């Protein structure tokens, strides 16, 4: 099961966070800082999965941006690792060549995309065109 999805940059600033298990707001900043420290200290040739407290972190780096997913021990880490890439591919398709600023300026849209893919900590859709369908429909209605 997925506990949370984080997008953090190399400076440790959170760009996006989505929790699938309740974590108090006051504890999130500390948790995120800790998680980022965990991932940033790792070298390129090291494993992309890290043990963190009683769960695991799966992280993937795209330029200066890290995407970190917290998962329970029973989850298949490699499938989550690829899920992250699928997510980035979807973003890339939507924004056509996504950048960190795209994500920042369209935080709401990125969240909407993520909501289509993951719900309640489970992967609910991975088909790119289907993930984007509701959002593109929204965009069309807003324009028209």
């Amino acid at each position: 099961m997925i506990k949370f999805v984080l997008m953090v940059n190399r400076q440790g600033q959170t760009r996006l966070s989505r929790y699938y298990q309740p974590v108090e707001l006051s504890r999130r900043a500390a948790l995120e800082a800790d998680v980022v420290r965990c991932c940033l200290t790792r070298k390129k040739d090291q494993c992309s999965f890290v043990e963190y407290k009683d769960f695991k972190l799966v992280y993937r780096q795209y330029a200066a941006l890290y995407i970190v997913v917290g998962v329970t021990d029973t989850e298949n880490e490699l499938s989550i690792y690829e899920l992250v890439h699928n997510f980035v591919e979807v973003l890339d398709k939507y924004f056509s060549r996504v950048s960190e600023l795209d994500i920042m300026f369209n935080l709401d849209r990125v969240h909407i995309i993520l909501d289509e893919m993951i719900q309640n900590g489970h992967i609910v859709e991975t088909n790119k065109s289907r993930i984007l369908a509701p959002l593109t429909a929204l965009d069309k209605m807003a324009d028209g």
Partner: protein
Amino acid sequence: MSDVVEKTLTALPSLLSLDSQPGSAKLSSTSKLGNLIRGITELTSKHEEEKLIQRELASIKEQVSSPNTSMRQMKELMVRAIYCESLGYEASFSYIHAIKLAQQGTVLEKRVGYLAVSLFLNESHELLLLLVNTVLKDLQSTNLIEVCMALTVVSQMFPKDMIPAILPLVEEKLNHPKEIIRRKAVLALYKFYLIAPNQVQHIHNKFRKALCDKDPGVMTASLHIYLQMIQENPEGYKDLTASFVTILKQVVGGKLPMDFNYHSVPAPWLQIQLLRILSLLGKNDQSTSEIMYEVLDESLRRAEMNHNITYAILYECVKCIYTIHPKSDLLEKAAKCIGNFVLSPKINLKYLGLKALTYVVQQDPKLALQHQMTIIECLDHPDLIIKRETLELLFRITNAQNVTVIVEKMLEFLHSNTDDYTTIDLVGKVAELAEKYAPGNEWFIETMNTVFSVGGDMMQPDIPNSFLKLLSEGFDTVEEDRKLRLFAVDSYVSLLQGEPGKLPQRFLQVISWVLGEYSHLREELEPATVMRLLAKLLDMKQTSSETKSWVLLAMTKLVRAGQVFQSAQEVSETYGSSMDTVLRQRAQELQHLSQDCELRARVLPQDAGLEPLEVDSSLSFLDGFVSEALAAGAAPYKPPHQRQEELAQAKALSLEPYGLSLPISMSSCSIADRQSPTLLSMSSGLSGDSTDLSHKGSSTTLKLDGVKRVWGREGYLAQREAVEEAAQVEVPSPLRSPSQQAEADSSHSQTPTPTPTPEPDQEKQQLASSLFFGLSSQSSVCLMGKSEPTPQRFRRKAKGQASSSGAAEQISNSLVSAPSAVDNFLCNNLLDSNITSQVGISSSEQTSELSQGPATTNGTCDTEAESTDGDIKGSNPSLIIGDNGLVAADPTPHKDPGSPKDFCLSSHLPAELSELCRSEITPLCSNQSLGLSACHVHKEDSLVLVVFITNSSDAAIRQILLDLDSEQLQVSCVSDSPVEDVTSHSVAMHQFSLTVKRPSVHVEVVGMVSYQLPVGTPQEVQFSYKLPLTSFIRPLTVSTEEYGTMWLSFSHDTKQNLTLISDGEEPLTATLNVLKEKLQLHIVEIIGMEGIIACQLLRDQPCLMHCRVHADVLAVWLRSPVPDLPDCLIYHCQRALQEH
């Protein structure tokens, strides 16, 4: 594709500094959001961030509450608020506006409103109730996008209590022509299933429809529900195995549309999900597993492409193959697969391979042998994660032969580790291994010393507890036992002589307990020396007061030696005035017990560790005190939940903190029992051996079945032969240095520990041989090892079969003996068409009918019996009960009179019973000479079981003894002088009164009748009689006020939704009337959409029911003082309504 993304993102840092970027084109750079983002990207310190966000929050706050803010602006404000919250600054003032935006906005604004709600609020937030109406409206909207949004938010969060309000709308969407709506409706139902499984119980067949949906997306969504349900109850869904297999086959075969592919692998995450479901279904089930072998084989074959995602599928596939019933060629292929993983140069794959191997070695430890050199390499891997995973693997393959090496590796890791979670976990594992496989006393104590000093005060409290329990419980020989304790004492004395200040508190507590209990074993050790060492602990600043009380108790035990009286007095004087009450009590005890030898011998007997401790858990010794208090006017005791409920219901001040404090203080008290010596010493002389501890101990050893235990209740049973064969190790001298002990260990355990050699390869080989010792008998590396016991799964299998065959036997015992064909023929001929429906009559009963029925009970008796029978059938169909449960109501009861046999036997019913409602008379068992039948009669205040004994032989049967027993029922004989003899061809009757001891949906009476024929030995016949709980239900006439007070005082309850009956009448009244008739309930009152009902379970065990109509379901809440009664009753209510 990925390369493109990465290249793009690599260019980012340079983009950040530019003013106009492609990404921000959609937003004007002067917008407020743009400003915020620019502000955030330019931040350099936490302090600046705080200033910026506080300013931002103030500006958002001002704008959201302004009436002039348009929805478009509101949307932007929400995004800004989301930013602030994701940086950790609360923006709670905006929550209500998020709900408003979802309500009033259009399209994207609405979606952002819903998004903000789902990000801001948690599932129990009360503001969420305000969203219900918006969701309701959007679900009914004609705009599909709005329906979509509503369903999305519902599947993320929704207040549990409001589900009934939208459930019909969501269900309706399952038939929507658009796949996306159907898919989201299924996901919404999945959410409901997660938060309130009872509410969606009635739509299980709709889930099946979703599974068969023509759109793969809808089918995929339904798998979430199935995975969850199958996890909870695999037995219930075995019939779907073939469907899941077919789906997987199609997916693997590439039958899905292309857009489901990910890097040309067809729907990989769907495959993984299906494999998880299959492994749950095939676990411990050979026939189900056989269905999936083919598709698993194909999955393995298809996933040979070199891409991460195919490895993720392979991993799941391998796990599945090793979970289900084994098939050798699949296992072989899976093993090969794992080999590819662990040997891969890619570190992520290596990790996954180790994880798979860890899972697999539980079934097949030999597999670890094939990869032993890789495992050794991973053990020295620079990446700690790999190292950690390897230790996990080693933990699973540990046995008595390799335990020393593996524990050594784990301790090595522990010493360099800084993460608390890992420490706690590993320390627990080391302790477990040490207890299970310790090769010798010294090794065990040394290892536990490390565990205590490394694990410190973080480790699980049951580690020291079970350690002390092991020490105190002793072994098969007194000598072994003594040696271990002696060694512990020696080791601890030397530790205390070193630097005790560095030891954790928990360890010090263990040390002081052991020294107090066992230091007398070492004769040359002066009690004064020990006393001095312990006193040193008391003087240390960092010693906690809990530890001090352990030390004081240890001193109290030492005083029995007599010579240390003086120092004991000094200590007790110092702490006699301590502010800590526990400490003060310890000190007082020390003082008094050191003066009074007799008392001390009684309270703290020496070497009493093996005597069982009597604990009066009923606290009967307080009975006198209680009755005195009651006589003096004290209120009788009420259990905490009852008290709390009364307080809450009486609308007194909210006393929740007090209500809560009770259970908490009790639990903390029980923890103290285990940890501090206080209570233990008071109640017994043997602190280590309270019943509490034995519970604790058993809980830690639960997982061990199938694994050989070396340390156990009986103590150290380690391959004694092996130890003896090994170089005889003399009893250790008291103060041996650790290095000497290590040497002793290695020789003792017979395990070749690695010795430094010039060639590293050889070193590894040696390490391997010691690590994998005992894993395989045919291994080239370790010929001496003996193989592990057979994997657990096979063992469990065999057990299951044994028990099921046992059950079958039982069933056949209680079965009615089947009538032979000849009997049937006879019966048809003689009794004509009347009897054709009655097949299950046994020969003896027929004989009795033939000889006696027609002759004696002709005419009057016949009609009387017929009318009784007809009455029952007409008025109360569910009361006619056969041995196998309910007999379906007969639509034309009067035209089809009951079987003639029934009349004959019923004529024997006493007059006062024959008028009453009763069940059909059912044959129980019979043989040539004797037949047994029974029925139950519903009296107003009791249930009478009538057993008829028919003598069908030509001789009298004597000394009949009827003995009934039941787990759930109290059975008492009604007849004053039970009939013992039955003359030839006549019927005797026994009456028993039944009351319920323990409610259950169906209750059963088992019985045995023994009798003596004129010739031959005494005979025995066994039988059983099953009846539903409803037979014991009677109406309970109470007023609404009485109902109110009773409701509050009952503690067991259950809630469930029932379907309403709607045939003409007002549905609530109609439904309640059906329940009333079928289950004998009393309707107290119906007010509007609510109804209250009362009934009692014989005798005098009330159960109250509260019903309320919600949409088209009846929400029922049952309460009773009797556990399980509400659950059983709700079952019968469901049945009654279904049958209607």
